[in-house]
């Protein structure tokens, strides 16, 4: 079975152990080996890209270069890391000048970026290398009849020529659990995470619009594939009561949590207690 | 002096010898149909003579592949076609003054201007031009291949030329004449006229020397022109560093012409690109309401943006001529909601393309449908835009503003209609 370099980034391990653990549990089910990468740190986020393009290129090229040593593709559970790695990979493989410049810096740290392995989101690897049929065989607790709204996240979807992500992957991974994908008008829209440090009010408003759109379309709960999006959609719901006087009570689960539950994992195994908005409706469904 | 010609089989009368009329005439002639081709000017070619490079190929679109290598527009193959084609009776300096009769058997009265120069004799030696400014050679490839004479500029030198012309081609005493011919079909190919926007006072045309129209700009850019193609100011011949163009001058304006002149956006950008890419360091700004580079011509717009042509959506708010010959211009940029101030050497107006003088009379005399002053189709619901009436056809810019390829296509459609009717 396939092996990957696992690039965690900084947010998942610090804020979402439930995501991290379900990542391993799901991988385990399919015999996927996830190898924590040695000697790496944060991707810097779009904020680093904004203030220091070259620095952002170097740190992410370094991550890619480290993975090249054992030749396995990188998988990451974070859209932000995915966006950074994909963009740097795309940029450096299309710009020889910058590649040279970055490699001159990387030389000091003893690695070289060649572009021989690809960065991927964990769900892409799951979908493409394990396959929907294989996953289907493992669904023991189907989520039949549950309507789930997917928040794909900006940096997974766009820019499409860079991320090369096909949103149907996400849809299929939800549908294979028996759940239905709830279409909602604002499905493309940003959750507001990036603007949080600069304008909190605006960030909250964006999260609220998103949740409203999902809820109005009839979603029983929402799913994400990124810690920053989870932060915005799950955690911010508490803030919304305060600022907008609105209560959405829309549980937000990581895609691996959903897959885990559908494959028969217990709620504590998937760390449901750590989700801010109680995920009771799902548990009721599963037990009922 | 009226001379009625009786013919075995009646020829076709083509009015206007621009690209449309030339195409129709030469093709009809090639099919063995006799054609009388008249134009009020002394040489053929119409407006296309003054265009320098033409879209869509940046060359003359009706030239053969092989001749595309040379710059400029005037190496026209119609020259040889006209010379070698016995079926064409070319009458320059000629206008149609009256049309009577019935479809298939029209009588057309022609007023033929004085034939000062016998083009069959003239060998273009240039002697007369040395003697007097009244003679000139419009272009080395002009057709007919002869000099032209302007009686308004007549002087002593002209008389000397008349005497000394080696082929005795000059007749200063030539008189106008009239003749009536019988024709089966009439092809209207009278083209367009670029409006002289003197009455639009906010642009200062006709008052400020460095305000010109696009057609005038084309002549400045022409390598065969006075400045040898250098972009210079009409006021003092100084080099132009900054140009501003304004679109929709007199077009899409209920006070002048309500229609869109259709091709001015394309040729404005053609000129903007030539200036930006071939006249070093000249900055062009285009002030527009909409850019309408229809179908394949979108390319010109894209190239222009890439080349660094500036586009300002909005209108000119104020224009002031400065003592040094430049113009101070304030334009309102509706996209930014800001006023921008420019200083330019040359201000170019994309002026409306209007029906040429005499169109109304022609339409009236044949009871045709006018379309904003141009010649409309006989049947608005039919697909035959080139059929103006029974045995009357129209092609090229006589139908309304049109580009060369379109004019040529329409002329060919006319030819095929006439051939069909004679089958």
């Amino acid at each position: 079975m396939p092996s990957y370099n696992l690039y965690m980034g900084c947010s998942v391990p610090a804020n979402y152990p439930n995501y991290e653990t379900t990542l391993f549990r799901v991988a385990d089910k399919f015999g996927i080996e996830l190898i924590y990468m040695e000697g790496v740190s944060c991707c810097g986020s779009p904020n680093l890209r904004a203030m220091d393009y070259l620095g952002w290129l170097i740190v992410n090229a370094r991550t890619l270069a480290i993975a090249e040593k054992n030749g396995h593709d990188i998988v990451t559970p974070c859209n932000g890391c995915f966006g950074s790695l994909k963009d740097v990979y795309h940029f450096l493989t299309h710009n020889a000048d910058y590649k040279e410049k970055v490699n001159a810096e990387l030389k000091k740290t003893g690695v070289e970026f060649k572009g021989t392995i690809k960065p991927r989101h964990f769900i892409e690897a799951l979908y493409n290398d394990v396959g929907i049929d294989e996953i289907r065989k493992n669904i023991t607790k189907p989520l039949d009849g549950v309507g789930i709204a997917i928040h794909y996240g900006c940096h997974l979807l766009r820019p499409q020529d860079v991320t090369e992500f096909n949103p149907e992957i996400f849809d299929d991974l939800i549908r294979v659990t028996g759940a239905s994908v709830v279409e909602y008008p604002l499905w493309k829209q940003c959750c507001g995470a990036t603007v949080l440090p600069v304008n909190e009010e605006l960030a909250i408003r964006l999260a609220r619009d998103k949740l409203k759109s999902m809820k109005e379309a009839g979603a029983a709960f929402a799913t994400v594939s990124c810690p920053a999006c989870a932060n915005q959609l799950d955690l911010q719901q508490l803030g919304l009561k305060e600022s907008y006087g609105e209560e959405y009570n829309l549980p937000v689960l990581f895609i691996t949590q959903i897959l885990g539950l559908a494959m028969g994992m217990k709620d504590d195994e998937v760390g449901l207690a750590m989700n801010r908005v109680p995920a009771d409706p799902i548990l009721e469904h599963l037990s009922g | 002096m009226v001379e009625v010609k009786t013919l075995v089989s009646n020829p076709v009368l083509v009015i206007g010898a621009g690209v449309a009329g030339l195409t129709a005439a030469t093709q009809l002639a090639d099919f063995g149909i006799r054609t009388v081709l008249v134009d009020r000017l002394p040489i053929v070619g119409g407006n296309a003579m003054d265009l320098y490079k033409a879209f869509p190929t940046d060359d003359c679109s009706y030239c053969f592949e092989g001749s595309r290598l040379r710059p400029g527009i005037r190496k026209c193959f119609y020259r040889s076609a006209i010379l070698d084609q016995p079926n064409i009776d070319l009458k320059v300096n000629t206008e149609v003054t009256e049309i009577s009769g019935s479809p298939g058997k029209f009588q057309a009265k022609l007023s033929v201007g004085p034939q000062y120069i016998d083009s069959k004799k003239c060998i273009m030696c240039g002697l007369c031009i040395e003697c007097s400014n009244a003679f000139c050679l419009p272009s080395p490839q002009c057709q007919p291949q002869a000099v032209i004479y302007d009686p308004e500029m007549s002087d002593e030198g002209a008389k000397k030329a008349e005497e000394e012309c080696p082929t005795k081609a000059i007749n200063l005493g030539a008189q106008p004449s009239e003749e009536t011919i019988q024709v089966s079909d009439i092809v209207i190919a009278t083209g367009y006229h670029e409006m002289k926007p003197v009455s639009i006072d906010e642009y200062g045309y006709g008052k400020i020397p460095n305000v010109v129209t696009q057609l005038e700009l084309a002549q400045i850019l022409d390598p065969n022109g006075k400045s040898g193609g250098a972009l210079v100011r009409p006021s003092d011949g100084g080099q132009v560093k900054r140009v501003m163009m304004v679109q929709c001058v007199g077009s899409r304006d209920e006070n002048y012409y309500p229609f869109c002149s259709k091709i001015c956006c394309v040729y404005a950008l053609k000129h903007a690109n030539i200036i930006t890419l071939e006249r070093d360091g000249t900055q062009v700004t285009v002030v527009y309401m909409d850019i309408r580079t229809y179908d394949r011509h979108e390319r010109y717009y894209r190239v222009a943006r890439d080349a660094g042509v500036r586009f300002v959506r909005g209108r000119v708010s104020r224009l002031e001529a400065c003592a040094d010959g430049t113009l101070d211009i304030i334009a309102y940029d509706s996209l930014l909601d800001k006023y921008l101030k420019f200083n330019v050497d040359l201000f170019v107006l994309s002026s409306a393309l209007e029906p040429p003088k005499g169109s109304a009379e022609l339409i009236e005399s044949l009871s045709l449908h006018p379309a904003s002053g141009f010649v409309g189709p006989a049947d608005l619901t039919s697909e035959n835009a080139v059929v103006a009436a029974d045995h009357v056809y129209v092609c090229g810019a006589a139908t309304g503003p049109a580009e060369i390829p379109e004019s040529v296509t329409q002329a060919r459609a006319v030819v095929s209609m006439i051939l069909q009717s004679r089958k």
Partner: protein
Amino acid sequence: MTETEEKADPPAVMIEPIDISKLDPDFREGIRSMPNGEELSACFACSTCTAACPIASTWKYKPHQLIRMILLGMRKEVLSSEEIWLCLTCFECQERCPQNVRVTDIFFDCKNLAAEEGMIPDSIVGLARELTDKGQLYVVTADWEREDMDLEPEVPGLSTEEFKTILKGTRTGRIVGGDE
């Protein structure tokens, strides 16, 4: 009124037009030469980007206007605008641009230029400091939560030293250093 009396400036009722000759003609080419800036010139001001943007309704300068301002050479206004920092980097504008102008990428370029000139919001300087001090944006604090989830308390393989060293040598280091 005497000659010696001081003349007060007349009240400013009219707004002066923007003098094109005073703008920076090199700004356009400068941006075009930056990462993904090349397609900048293809912009034909259709404003699709602005229509696509989820937050531009709150902006003084909308995305299409910022692009126009770059093309015109309004360097100062663009680099000091707060909009470029408010951008969500959601790429909706870029994705929908009919001329393939990489709008979001270009705003990243603008932010880099602004940062180089010290025009950078405090909150972003704060993030720069986090990155150079801690070597990451988020640090594990609740390691018991990780253990509860059967994870190692510390993230395996994590090493922040190289990261910090790299960024101290690039602009991030200057942003942080220059503030001290």
